[in-house]
């Protein structure tokens, strides 16, 4: 059963000259699914989430969340959803606990039930010890966790996470990803946005790839990877920066794309690895570089993005 149905959503900021942030986007999310919107900066992920949160009105199209229209029945939709905004939206001069109590009241909760639920959520986000401290005394990771906690209080059926792991340490990130999986396991349908391919890969049942306001592909990870065709990925590391080498390899027959080198590391999408590998070693030797690590892998979502747009996911 489709829990969220998005049809022809369109949003332009400051018309007529402003950017078309979301351009006729359609997709569906099944009940109990984790659906990720993957895309680079400015792809339109936050704008899409804002429309599905009834925060922005679309210029065209509509979406149904749990059967209710975001344009015509926003009150009904809002009661079903919990939104974790991309930027931390908390009251810095109040404690973590006071924040949770306040946001709980905004969802119509009160009294003993609210207090009990706040205790549970504090436990869940691991902030029982620091609950009385003001939020502006928290670390970035702790703020992120309260930011998430505030969306969980009313046990929503749908949870939207807008890049919840940006700018935090690997440990906090791990606990957030595990938390999302746990929530999903308990039956919550999740809409998750990220520009980290690995997160989308790890979490999602299905993924939508967005670029410049458009949804350029949707499907399971396998379905998306198949778009790249019968190709193999070669991951390799050189002992030096390799911009010129990458450019030269891009011209080799049988190479469909080469990622932008990152500190000597890059990957190539090729038709037949066995034919190409000797040519790569030759090319490296010709410019006095050495390949110090090389491996073969299945194509990933980053290759899919490159394949579809001609650009890397992260610039």
């Amino acid at each position: 059963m489709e829990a969220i149905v998005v049809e022809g959503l369109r949003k332009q900021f400051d018309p007529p000259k402003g950017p078309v942030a979301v351009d006729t986007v359609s997709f569906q999310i099944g009940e109990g699914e984790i659906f990720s919107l993957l895309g680079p900066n400015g792809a339109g992920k936050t704008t899409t989430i804002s429309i599905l949160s009834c925060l922005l009105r679309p210029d065209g199209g509509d979406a149904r969340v749990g059967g209710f229209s975001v344009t015509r029945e926003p009150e009904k939709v809002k009661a079903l959803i919990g939104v974790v905004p991309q930027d931390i939206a908390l009251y810095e001069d109040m404690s973590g606990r006071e924040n949770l109590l306040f946001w709980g009241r905004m969802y119509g909760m009160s009294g003993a039930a609210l207090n009990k639920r706040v205790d549970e959520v504090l436990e869940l986000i691991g902030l029982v010890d620091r609950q009385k401290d003001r939020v502006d005394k928290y670390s970035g990771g702790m703020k992120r966790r309260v930011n998430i906690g505030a969306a969980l209080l009313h046990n929503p059926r749908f949870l939207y996470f807008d890049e919840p792991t940006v700018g935090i340490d690997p440990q906090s990130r791990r606990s957030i990803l595990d938390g999302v999986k746990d929530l999903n396991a308990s039956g919550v349908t999740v809409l998750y946005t990220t520009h980290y391919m690995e997160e989308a890969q790890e979490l999602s049942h299905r993924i939508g790839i967005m670029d410049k306001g458009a949804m350029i592909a949707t499907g399971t990870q396998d379905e998306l990877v198949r778009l790249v065709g019968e190709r193999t990925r070669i991951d390799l590391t050189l002992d030096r920066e390799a911009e010129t080498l990458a450019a030269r390899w891009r011209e080799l027959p049988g190479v469909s794309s080469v990622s932008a080198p990152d500190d000597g590391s890059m990957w190539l999408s090729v038709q037949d690895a066995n034919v190409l590998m000797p040519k790569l070693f030759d090319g490296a030797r010709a410019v006095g570089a050495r390949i110090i690590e090389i491996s073969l892998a299945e194509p990933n979502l980053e290759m899919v993005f490159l394949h579809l747009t001609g650009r890397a996911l992260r610039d």
Partner: protein
Amino acid sequence: MRALSIAWKDTRHVYRNIAGLALMLVAPLLLATALGAAFGSGDNFSIAAVKTVVADLDVGAEAGAPAAGATIAGALDNPDMADLLDVTKVDTAVTAKATVDAGDAEVAVIIPSGLSAALMASDSAGSEVQIYRDPALSVGPAIATAVVSSVVQSLNGARAAAAASVHLAVSLGVTEDSELADLASKSAEAFSGLAQSEPPVTLEERAPLVPGLEQQKRPNVASQVLVGMMLFFMLFGAATPSRSILDEHREGTLARLFTTPTPRSVILGGKYIAVFLVVLVQAIILLLAGWLLLGAHWGALGPVVVLTLCGAVVAASLGLVTVSFAKTPAQAGAVSSAIFVFIGLISGSFTGGANIGGAFAIVRRVSPLGWLLEGWNGVLFGGSWQSIALPVVAALAFALAFFGIATFFFRRRYA
């Protein structure tokens, strides 16, 4: 309920900000205390007697004739003026100035030796009475100056009268010098006697005069000053929580609020309640502080309560309406401060509200604060319901209009 949660959160936020509290509570109290002290702490709106030294160097036009200097010195030392001027006589101009320089007097009046002669002659060279004063002070020297100039004016009148009578006598054929001089001095004396029969300055009667209430009690100065200051600084008190709408917009919590099932009208309503609560608490603290620390007597309880509530409503509406025009918190701060100072000026917030009469009493009715001050003056001078009825209705009408405008702009932007 949700609106109250929002209001409570915003109110606490304001009262946690020390700098904001200083502006809301400390500034008006300090100003009222300072101004109250400057005007004396008596129960009357009277000014502490100004210490004045007089050096009368005028030797008179000729022996036996009345000297102009003595007339001025006498006017200053007049028992009727004892409340206002505390006069000491010294012999030389140097001593007089030294007394002021040493801070033992606020003003020195130096009457030149040739004053009478100059007044008798047709040109007035050497007839300047010198007022020497401490430039840091203004109230005391202004009074001394007013007294002196009123005497000098009447003396000038006397001179004109003398000259006119001499001309008349000459044209009638009187030529004897001593006869003419006698005539001149007699007519001058007659004129100045006439002029002096009017008290030169009547400051007591410039004190607040509410028609029909002359017999009522006089409130102390600090309370009158504090009312004006309180209403003025309540505007700033209101602007802070009003700005929280813009702050929350910038910080993303407003957007987050809009994703909860709480309707936008309730969110805005909560904000309005917060602004009202903040200024109401401010007003109550200031009124209590004025009563306990400055000895203010606010007047009949019922009208005072109504005026306080009404003041909070007006301040809240003004805070919200000025913020509703702005796009950023910084812009709101600058715009609203400018507007508030203007409103304070046209409403008479800085003049203690008391000695307002004539045209200004009408002019300030263009502002709700002016109406409120009118109401407060009514109760301070012992009035009751009928003296606040019109001001309250008028001020609330302003507030209603401002709330309407603010709501229109906020809805257009955020709804």
